[in-house]
């Protein structure tokens, strides 16, 4: 589903690579934590998969597409195969919960019928049924993140990228979000989640990929947050 072959990324010539000779393969349906300290290369990893950045060296395949050879006008098609969730939710403050989720379908040209069918289903899945008309500022942080997840998953992409989705949430709320992501993963969706949250990683016991200074230092099934610190 996601494959990186000897991938390096250098932002400024002469500077230390943000990622250095990374080899990773993530299968369909995997749940993978991407861990490492700030500046370790987690965000660059996600940006490369989303084709927001191009690798300096190496090859990347995502959802059957060779990203090195993907022309820019085909990038939108790639992104319809990837849902993205962020730490800061990125909801549209002037739209209701329903409209925020529907927006993701509207802008890729889905019909009104599709939207009417999918959005309520998705809000039901993330536990927000009955809150369709609420504005984002009327929701708690956890609820806002659920809206963001609903928006990312409403098109049923095979891959879900999460960049510190629990970073702004208290531990109790974070657990709820992780349960939701786990549930989505059980539908066959590949989930790749960058996080600093050691408790969650330790509880979930999923595959862990650890980056340090741009190098892949650990790729462990049923891993914990940090071998060195545990």
């Amino acid at each position, binding site marked *: 589903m996601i494959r990186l072959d000897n991938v390096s990324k250098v932002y400024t010539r002469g500077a230390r690579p943000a990622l250095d000779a990374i080899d990773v393969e993530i299968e369909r349906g995997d749940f993978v934590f991407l861990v490492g300290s700030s500046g370790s290369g987690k965000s660059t990893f996600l940006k490369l998969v989303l084709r927001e950045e191009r690798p300096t060296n190496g090859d990347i395949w995502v959802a059957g597409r060779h990203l090195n050879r993907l022309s820019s006008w085909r990038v939108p098609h790639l*992104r319809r195969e990837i849902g993205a969730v962020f730490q800061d939710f990125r909801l549209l403050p002037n739209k209701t919960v329903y409209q925020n989720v529907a927006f993701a379908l509207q802008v890729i040209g889905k019909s009104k019928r599709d939207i009417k069918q999918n959005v309520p289903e998705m809000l039901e899945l993330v536990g927000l049924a009955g809150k369709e008309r609420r504005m984002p500022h009327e929701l708690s942080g956890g609820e806002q993140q659920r809206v963001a997840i609903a928006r990312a998953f409403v098109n049923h992409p095979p891959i879900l990228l999460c960049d510190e989705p629990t970073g702004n949430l208290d531990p109790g709320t974070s657990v709820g979000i992780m349960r939701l992501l786990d549930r989505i993963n059980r539908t066959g969706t590949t989930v790749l989640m960058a996080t600093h949250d050691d408790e969650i990683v330790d509880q979930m016991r999923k595959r862990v990929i650890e980056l340090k200074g741009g190098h892949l230092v650990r790729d462990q099934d049923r891993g914990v947050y940090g071998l060195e610190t545990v």
Partner: protein
Amino acid sequence: MRLQFVFGEVWNGLRRNSTMALSVALVTFVSLTFVGAAALTQMQVQQLKDAWYGKVEVSIFLCPPDSYEENCAAGPVTEAQTDDIVAVLEEGNVSDLVESVYVETREEVYDSIVAADDSGVYSQLEPEDLAPVMRVKLTDPEEFQVVADATAGLPGVESVYDQREVFDDLFDFLNAATIVAAALAIVMMVTAMLLITTTIRLSALSRRRETTIMRMVGSSRSLIQLPFMLEGAVAATGGAVLAIAGLFFGTQYLVEGWLTGSISWVDYIGREDVWSVAPWLVLIAVGLAGAASLLTLNRYTRA
């Protein structure tokens, strides 16, 4: 669905940035009014040239009795000299430039002078004091100088006069006015384009969250950029419509209403000429907005 979305976004964008959109419309209005005024002035010049140059003639004044001109020292023009001049015009090198030659007799010249004389200054004048005048119509009025050179020194010719000289000062003035209007139009169009660029940039920045989400969920670049382009185009087209209305009413009240009443012998442009300029003004407005969008959008809504 997408069309509805795009129009919704355009409407929202215009509503949120209404003051900027209004300023774009007004600047475009002023600049396109200058463009339209320059075009209409040129149309007026052309219309006057077509009307007047077709009517004007080269007048060859033949030597009258008592002329002080050097070429007339031998005395008044004779019939043989008149025939020679006609022969030069009709059969000489310049014959292909000459459409017709009419020799106005001294009686006809006298009658036309007296008819135009309201003050009585010429009341003492007799037909015998005058000489015949040749009225030469040219196939191409611009070729006056060639005909003048061929006839000016001939025996019996006092002077050669091109009626176009009367109008040339007016045309020079109108041409200068066109250049001034065109120069102002260019400055104003540059201003309009910069303003549209700024408007689109502000609009794109204020909706950055939306465009980021659109990119993330796989919206095409054209769908992301289209609402901004249309916003600029709508505001600029609004300006073009105002300019067309301004030119229309300007022509109606200033030209057809006022000028036609006060200086009636001139053949003026009319409101129908504004309609022939109108599509170009709309096209320029849309072109300005399009160019401004291309300059701005790739940077602020990258895919």
